[in-house]
């Protein structure tokens, strides 16, 4: 079965997340977006885990569904065009802060569990080690290596996925808090890692340039801190809808169950370029080189972004592919496309209304972004949006790259272009 999965999200119990990040809203937004399997996030958090136990029931092997009593009231809010089954997979992200070789490391790691029992085992173990109740993504002074060991000891079917591996401050290969290699970070246990998450600021071709990542399959997730951010990156599977199906697709080098990934334009990510947000210095890595890495505003070293970091660690030229490569499609979230078409803010009421209206006419967001015939979109939402989606599908967007925590800004239409497209329409 073909399905889309987003396997890195958070609950309302994580720091800096939306208050409505609960199971009902995940269920709702997964359907708006067209996600069939969504991570639970935060399963180590005792209260969230209680909610998972209370509101979910086992579905297909290792996956869970929202109990009818909780799902039914939500269903009314979902346009019939979007209604679909939603499955949950137990996930959690841990923030590891520790010192190795006299350098402070801050690495975020994901754990997927095949059962409540396996999840509970990890929860118990981590509860002995540190505080797991303050933050859904707990901070532990534990070496990533040890976390991996705990994960494997708790259940051999647990999956361990280094999260957004290029993020400067919080990742396995990050320029500021990470390591230069997976070997250095995970030592002899690295063979038990099958997948790594590319994060928003890198795309698969950037990752293919590192031989050390050859053995890993690349996955992409939203890391959503609010329901509406679900699926800003995701994975397309074509395999058995079960934990085992996903496990095999990630762990077995010969399995073709992971078909492709849906990706942010990496330039749109918060850390693509180098720079200083507070000094408004945004540099391409070559520009950084010219300045010896020092900010022209404050004179301190700039935050080295993902593009430069990949360049530093890459041992292959651009254009090469890794052993386990998969095709990918760059996407822009539909609300951003609507906003761009209307030349309005993403948060504006008109955009929100248009979003719901299009969904109810055509179907879920991924269908609209990826598969829906352009003519249908024209009819339902006008030529400008259809053209916007067309350009997105072809990768014809211009982006001012993100840097030092600032998202990149997408631009699809030049000044006056929208009117031009509309006029063309009125000619016929």
């Amino acid at each position: 079965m073909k399905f889309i999965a987003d396997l890195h999200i958070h609950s309302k119990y994580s720091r800096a997340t939306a208050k409505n990040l609960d199971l009902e809203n995940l269920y709702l937004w997964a359907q708006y977006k067209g996600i069939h399997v969504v991570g639970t996030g935060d399963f180590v958090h005792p209260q969230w885990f209680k909610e998972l136990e209370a509101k979910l029931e086992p579905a297909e092997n290792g996956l869970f569904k929202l109990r009818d009593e909780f799902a039914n009231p939500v269903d009314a809010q979902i346009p019939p065009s979007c209604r679909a089954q939603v499955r949950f997979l137990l996930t959690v992200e841990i923030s590891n802060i520790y010192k190795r070789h006299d350098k402070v490391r801050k690495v975020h790691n994901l754990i997927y569990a095949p059962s409540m029992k396996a999840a509970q085992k990890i929860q118990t173990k981590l509860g002995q080690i540190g505080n797991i109740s303050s933050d859904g993504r707990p901070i532990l002074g534990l070496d990533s290596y040890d976390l991996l060991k705990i994960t494997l000891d708790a259940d051999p079917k647990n999956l361990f996925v280094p999260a957004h591996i290029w993020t400067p401050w919080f990742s396995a290969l990050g320029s500021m808090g990470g390591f230069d290699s997976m070997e250095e970070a995970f030592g002899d246990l690295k063979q038990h890692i099958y997948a790594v998450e590319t994060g928003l600021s890198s795309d698969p071709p950037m990752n293919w340039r590192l031989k050390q990542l050859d053995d890993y399959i690349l996955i992409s997730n939203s890391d959503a801190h609010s329901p509406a951010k679900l699926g800003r990156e995701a994975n397309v599977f074509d395999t058995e809808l079960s934990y085992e199906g996903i496990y095999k697709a990630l762990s077995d080098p010969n399995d073709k169950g992971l078909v492709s990934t849906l990706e942010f334009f990496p330039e749109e990510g918060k850390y693509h370029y180098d720079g200083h947000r507070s000094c408004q210095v945004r540099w391409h890595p070559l520009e950084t080189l010219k300045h010896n890495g020092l900010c022209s505003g404050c004179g301190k070293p700039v935050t080295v972004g993902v593009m430069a970091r990949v360049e530093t660690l890459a041992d292959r030229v651009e254009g090469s592919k890794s052993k386990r490569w998969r095709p990918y499609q760059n996407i822009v979230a539909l609300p951003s496309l609507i906003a761009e078409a209307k030349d309005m803010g993403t948060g504006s009421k008109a955009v929100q209304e248009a979003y719901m209206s299009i969904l109810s006419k055509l179907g879920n967001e991924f269908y609209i972004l990826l598969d829906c015939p352009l003519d249908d979109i024209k009819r339902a939402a006008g030529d400008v949006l259809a053209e916007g989606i067309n350009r997105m599908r072809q990768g014809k967007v211009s982006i001012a790259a993100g840097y030092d925590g600032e998202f990149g800004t997408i631009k699809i239409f030049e000044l006056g272009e929208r009117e031009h497209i509309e006029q063309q329409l009125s000619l016929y």
Partner: protein
Amino acid sequence: MEKPADLNELQWQAVIHEGSHVLISAGPGTGKTHTLTRRIAHLIPTLAPNESILAITFTNKAALQMQDRLVGLVTRQSQLFVGTFHSFCLSLLRDHLEHTALPKDFKVASPEDITGFDKATLERISHLKSTQLIINPDDDYKAYQRYLRQNSLIDFDDILCEALLLLEDEDLAIQLRQQYRYIFVDEYQDSNTVQNALLKILARDGVLLTAIGDANQSIYGFRGSQVEVFNKFEQDFSSAKVLTLKENYRSAPSLLTASGQVMGGVQLLAKLEGQGKLIIHQALTDRAEADYVVHQIEKLIGGLDMNTSKRAVRSLGDIAILYRLNTQRHVLAQALEHLGIPFQVSQKIQKSEVYSDEDALGQHEEVVEFNVEKVSLMTLHAAKGLEFPVVFIVGCEDHLLPLDLMGMKSDASEERRLFYVGMTRAKEHLYLTHAKRRQLFGQTMIQNPSPYLANIAEELKAYEVTKRIPPKRIKDDLQMKLF
């Protein structure tokens, strides 16, 4: 013999000193344990096969650490006993049980074993036992001892008292003197009268004592230790030599100067370079003080999420928060917990931790499977012997430092030494914080800064004022507003 590169001249003199008892006066960060272990390693080869060295540490943990350090240095481990006074004495009692008046099945009392006596009574009796060689027993004392005997128990203090009694047997004393040719005592400033008496029996007739410690760090007066023991060393042990280690390898020069000023002009030679930071912060309340501390920690470890990230300079294990009273920890723990910053509270040092032979008490160290880093919270007392790149001392207020509060009052000079111990734990950053208002034991107190702060020269202090912490630094997701 040539001086090895990892010892300075004064340390080297202490290592190779021969022919008399020696007191090594070692200020904070002067390489005390290093010197001690090197001296032990230096002396072991001079022993005859049936002779050994007795090395007394202050805690079991320190004993383990010393053993670890000696592993590479000493080939004849069998000629070495490393342990606390209590573990040494307990093994004496067990080995020579027939010469004691103790029941065959005696057990060392743990706190749960003792019922029917209030805390104050127990403290008073304990103080008597550790400071008086001859006790005039009152009714409480008699009842307590009867209780112990009826239950085949001895308490921690009895371990030493019974051993002292045992050593009145001159044959045994001679035997021990023939066996233990050198005796080492760490943290000598904290040894009490009974321990001193034990040493006087053991360190005679050619047995040489090496005592090491720092009179300025004597902080266990309430437990019967007497700083005078330190000052009387040359009297107690004839023809003793006193050596002083003067070079500090722990703290940044400015921090060393500052702690020296608090201690009335102690001058150690700073061997480290680099700028230390001594920050004074006044908060409105103890809660605000805790928020300030936690916010600083968040900054030091480079932020906790993407939006507050900075280059991480410190790890969790680099940081300690110290306080005078255990009860001060709650508000700090709360603030740390709120941000999910991992921390551990080292509880007030229990007697069992300081003194006892854990195995004999049936308490085994928890097996540490993973090395987990956390911010350390502890009392100033518990911080003794430790060091951290960053130290916060909270509650630097009059009546709290020095303590003079609700009937709790401690010896003024000992309080000053306690503060000195706290300050000298810091390697690079030292934060001294105080609050204007503090909740303590259900009362709101209006507080003034600790007089110790005024002892530090102004040019060494940086005053930091709280900036208002912005509510939540989440940039609201634009799409979050959808619906």
